[in-house]
């Protein structure tokens, strides 16, 4: 516990190894308690899903015309969350933003788990999930293939690609760290880590290929990140529904995704920093940088909201205008205004540096942003459908215990994965932290030993 107390002195390479390995020690009661709570919620969610499969989609509150509701809302929400990780690891890597190093591992893990959570929702949502494999292209005796014109098939491709590439990226990034774990552990753990480390030694040849491959992966992942949420946004933009049919959607969704992704990163990192005493690695300047990013993306999002309102007014399209007016004033207006408050107003506090460096303020803003971003998707999906072209069928969606439980259960699923992860894998990148540390020099100012 040496380094942390001596804030004035940056950690050494050995400190890094020790501090990271410390996070993998046997969990305490607090951790087990959390696992239990999250596990119970997850169990309830799974039971709700089972019930829904058995009874039919009617168990969820969907109806004509609101045939998509909380499941797709949560799907888009989780995909959005999944954006921060790859953004931090790929785009910021290419931009050589050094502050990313202490947070990117947690963010990447979050990405993968968020995408895994998101990936469940199309299944939960499908009326006959047992035939969901129809969406995959595979050889079959009937010669039937999916309809590649459907944005849902694009989703299948985009999301599975995103999950694969993120996982590859994540695993590649983990290899040297797992090697460090291997060298520091004993017994069966050592054997498992040894297997996962693929015999990494950190030789110059390995590093050479590794760095090249990592750079290329980052280069591939960058357009991918931007494309995935664009594709998801096209689920809506390609449809005819007023409130969905907009060319604005791709950048709008990508920005929102980054916005919510960073909020989620903060929601995960701040407690980690607190409980694992990682103040030396996750410093105020890191928080400050993320605060700035949230503020920026929040302002961009506000601009998009204004554009959205402006275009539907300026289009002169009767359906668009009616839809907008209805959203702003009628049954779901509370959700819309809640969203505006969370996404447009609450991040403004981050204009102050003191707010950006205060973990409490950041945490509160992040939670608000997450709520706001969930409702953003809700506001795009539900009210647009509830008040679309055909007045005969207009109707309000009312959630049921089943779909509410499933959505809450999805958060439990995400957190259980994340809580599991931080106990078995280094949640800080040992290698990259070392890279940013002052090098151990015998003759330099900082050298010691």
């Amino acid at each position, binding site marked *: 516990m040496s380094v942390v107390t001596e804030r004035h002195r940056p950690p050494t390479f050995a400190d890094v190894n020790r501090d990271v390995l410390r996070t993998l020690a046997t969990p305490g009661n607090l951790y087990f308690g959390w696992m239990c709570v999250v596990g119970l919620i997850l169990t309830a969610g799974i039971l709700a899903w089972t019930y829904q499969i058995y009874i039919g989609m009617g168990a969820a509150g969907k109806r004509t015309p609101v045939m998509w509701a909380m499941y797709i809302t949560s799907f888009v929400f989780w995909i959005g969350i999944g954006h921060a990780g790859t953004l931090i690891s790929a785009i910021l890597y290419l931009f050589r933003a050094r502050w990313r190093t202490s947070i990117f591992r947690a963010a990447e893990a979050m990405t993968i788990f968020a995408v895994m959570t998101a990936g469940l929702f199309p299944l939960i949502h499908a009326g006959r999930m047992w035939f969901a494999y129809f969406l995959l292209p595979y050889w079959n005796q009937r010669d039937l293939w999916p309809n590649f014109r459907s944005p*849902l098939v694009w989703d299948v491709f985009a999301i599975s690609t995103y999950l694969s590439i993120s996982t590859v990226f994540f695993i590649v990034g983990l290899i040297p760290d797992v090697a460090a774990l291997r060298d520091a552990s004993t017994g069966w753990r050592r054997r498992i880590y040894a297997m996962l480390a693929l015999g990494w030694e950190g030789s110059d040849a390995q590093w050479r290929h590794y760095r090249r491959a990592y750079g290329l992966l980052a280069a591939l992942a960058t357009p991918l990140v931007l494309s995935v949420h664009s594709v998801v946004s096209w689920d809506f933009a390609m449809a005819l529904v007023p409130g969905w049919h907009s060319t604005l959607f791709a950048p709008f969704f990508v920005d929102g995704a980054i916005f919510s992704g960073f909020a989620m990163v903060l929601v995960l990192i701040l407690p980690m920093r607190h409980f694992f005493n990682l103040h030396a690695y996750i410093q105020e300047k890191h928080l400050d940088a993320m605060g700035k990013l949230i503020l920026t993306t929040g302002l961009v999002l506000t601009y998009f909201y204004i554009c959205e309102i402006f275009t539907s007014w300026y289009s002169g399209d009767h359906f668009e205008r*009616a839809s907008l007016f209805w959203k702003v004033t009628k049954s779901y207006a509370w959700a819309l205004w809640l969203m505006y408050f969370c996404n447009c107003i609450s991040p403004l506090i981050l204009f102050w540096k003191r707010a950006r460096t205060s973990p409490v303020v950041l945490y509160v803003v992040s939670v608000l942003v997450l709520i706001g971003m969930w409702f953003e998707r809700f506001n795009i999906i539900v009210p647009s459908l509830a008040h679309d072209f055909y007045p005969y069928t207009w109707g309000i969606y009312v959630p049921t215990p089943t779909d509410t439980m499933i959505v809450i259960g999805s958060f439990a699923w995400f957190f259980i994965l994340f809580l599991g992860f931080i106990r078995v894998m280094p949640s800080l990148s040992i290698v990259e932290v070392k890279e940013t540390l002052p090098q151990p020099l015998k003759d330099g100012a900082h050298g010691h030993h």
Partner: protein
Amino acid sequence: MKRRDFFKIVTTSGAAAAVAGCQQSAERILPLVVPNEQIVPGVAAWFSTVCRECPAGCGVIARNREGRVVKLEGNPDHPVNRGALCLRGQAALQGAYHPDRFAGPQQRQGGALRAVSWDEALKLVAGKIGELRQAGRSKAVALVTQLENGSLAVLMDRWTQALGTRPRVSLEPFGYEAIRAANRIVFNRDAIPHYAFEEAEVILSLGADFIETWLSNVSYARAFKRMHGFREGRAGTFIHVEPRQSLTAANADEWVRNAPGTEGLLALAILRAMIDEGLADRRFSEAVAGIDVKKVAEESGVSAETIKHIATLFGRARPGLAVGGGVAVTGTNATPTLVAINLLNAATGAPGRTIRFGPDSAYGKVTPYGEVAQLVQAMAKGEIDVLLVGPRTNPAFTLPGGLKFADAARKVGLVVSFANQPDETTALAHLVLPDTHWLETWGDYAPREGVIGLMQPTMSPVRDALPMGDVLLRAARAVLGTEEGKGPLPWASFEQYLKTAWEPLLRGQLDGWQAALQQGGVWRETPPAPVTAKIGAVQASRPKLDGDPGGLVLLAYPSFRFYDGRAAGAAWLQEAPDTMTQAVWEAWVEIARETATKLGIAQGDVVRVSSPHGAIELPAYVSASLHPSAVAIPIGHRYAPYHARYVAGSPTPMNPVALLPAGADPASGAAAYLGVRVTLTKTGTRRPLAILQATHDQDDRELAQHVDLSTAREQALRGKPKEHEFLSMYPPQHYPGYRWGMTIDVDQCVGCQACVVACQAENNVPVVGKAQAAYGRQQHWLRIERWAEGRPERPLNVFLPMLCQHCEVAPCEPVCPVFAAYRTEEGLNGQVYNRCVGTRYCGNNCPYHVRRFNWYDQEFPAPLDVQLNPDVTVRQLGVMEKCTMCIQRIVAGKDRARDEKRSVRDGDILTACQQTCPTQAITFGNLKDDQSEVSKLAHSPRAYHVLEELGTRPSVTYLKKVTRGHA
């Protein structure tokens, strides 16, 4: 139950096997024991019969597949309905397959009905009647049936004579006795004539709901649209006077809202105005001597200008037709009112042209309500020991509450009901002898003079049942101690009697019986008899009303969905919305907005409606159009026991007849449906109605379009100015064979919902129940929307049947990830259920919202599952479904054409909705053929597409409604 399983059931039923035995293992196939000549498994056999859901007596052909009737259609040869059928006729199947049908005869033992054998049951009846006969009290036996005028009626009358009982009572709750009485007075004919709506130039209806239930709704709706529908520049005018905006009122060019009970005064005032304008003969002055148009205007709430305007319009018509009916002319002043209407007719030259005595309606044979009331009084006095109540007759439900039928029935020693499903009367009966459903029985019925419909069993009985005629014959022989072939009632069965009775009718015709069976009966032209009108003074006054003088006038009107309640067992009808309110399942009390505001009642509040004779509690429907002095409740809403699965909570009585007094119109003996004032009290609870239409305001979206008559005429002559073509980035679509399309003439649609139920019957569309329907989960593939424009209290109503538009550029198709939705080579929007994963993307992206998702696995409670159309898949939970344009009929039509080595022509393929439409608003056919009807209509100047600006290019073309401005 899967749709094709009944291949097995049927085939077991070479003999009359009960459907209960249908639980076969899924892998067994059972051949017939003895081949049945008429039935080929997999090929439909059609049997003609007569619909007995109301006394209109439409001809029906029943589609029999593997021994079970799966669909009813109107008999195209029948002169009454010409192939069309109303929603009640379509839903009659659900009566035959009613899940609560009695499994056999029942006897009340210890308060509950228990099964007994036919022999025991018959012995009981015969014993009781025999006893009375021995005691010389034969007159203590009473037989009450629905209106019968064929062989069964003759047989029953012979029966009553042979046994010396009281004369038979033909009980029809809506008997139109006052029309008969008025005709007696004015035209000296005790009859209800045939009204030739199609010949009239102007129709003036004073409360006659001829599109809903009045006399013969299918026939008159059809004739009305022939007169009223826009055809090559010609279109008649229709003025309707009623305090409530009924479906018929909504179809009027001008709906005049009057104070309840002032129809007679209005008729006289119109006549007065006609005379003043010189549009009617001076001899009619005598009749309207005391009438002052201004005073009538004051009393009726109809302005003097309106009265004069109507007089001008109607007076110029040669001929016109004035009809009176409905609740508003069934008060204590009903006869004078209808006399006044008769005089209007006489003044415009209607008799002999639009009003034809000769082909008189069967309704003329109904026992007047006054006599029914006498019977009930006799029962109450204990003069009746045996009461036999025929099938489809439910006096405990349909007789006014003031008559206290239930109390009277408790004084009867033996109440026998022939109903085959439980109702309010079987609840009082000591013995139930279930009659066969009319689809399972022999019979005949003459809806009007000259038209005799012949009934034959279209399938074997679904449950153990005997025709009432057989039971009566057997009982009588047991009483009289005679044998078969001897005595006054020698026939072995009613079937034998029927065939004997028909012999003289068919004399001289080779194979006459077969021909009559095939045609569905015999008909010949009956020329109209000349009549002269007798003009005398008319004492038109307001009706006498019971109850709190400060209360609201109760308008208890027959529901076009349930008639008097006999059709209410069909879940299809419960879920077919009332077109005006778009409410399903539960009944409601329609309260004028003014009254609701005053009493603080909001829509869905449960309101207690009380009269001196009873009280019922119903949810409120707040109406902007109802006359403020009235409240309206539909008659006929009741639930069958199996409806419990569809409606949560225990059902409450919904019958407004229970609030009515026992009184009658003294001149005719007609029941006074307009007879009581009621008071409303809020109960404080809420029970929101299941209303399917979110709003009647189309918010300038031009879904239901209309054009005024002069523009329509001009365009019909000169053609419509060409509109811009929609541009496309893609090459035009190629159709190698046919291209199917549909046109729907909004001007022809009267909103009767027949197509909705026909579609449900044809396509195995499930019923979902009140809560689900209220939550937007109804499964109908076709719906009729009511769009209202203009002032809410006097709106212009347009009915828009909405179904899958089969768009050429369908928004639903490209979004489907698995090609479950795609465009077929024949221009349909295909939906492959077994490929569907249930993402519901198509449902979102369909701007018309005609796609229906299976939120649950919908059940078809046995034996309703036997009705399922074997040609249509029963959809599993989690799949999307929608209108297929009856693809199974298209396949069958092409198959037939190919057998004959030709291509499909107009008429080869009729969709279920098109087939049953009384006004022929729907046309289906090949759009590639320039000569087909559908092509011609699709190029009409009135043609438009719903939400055309979206560029979906639908295959369904609508023709605009033609409005008459201010008539």
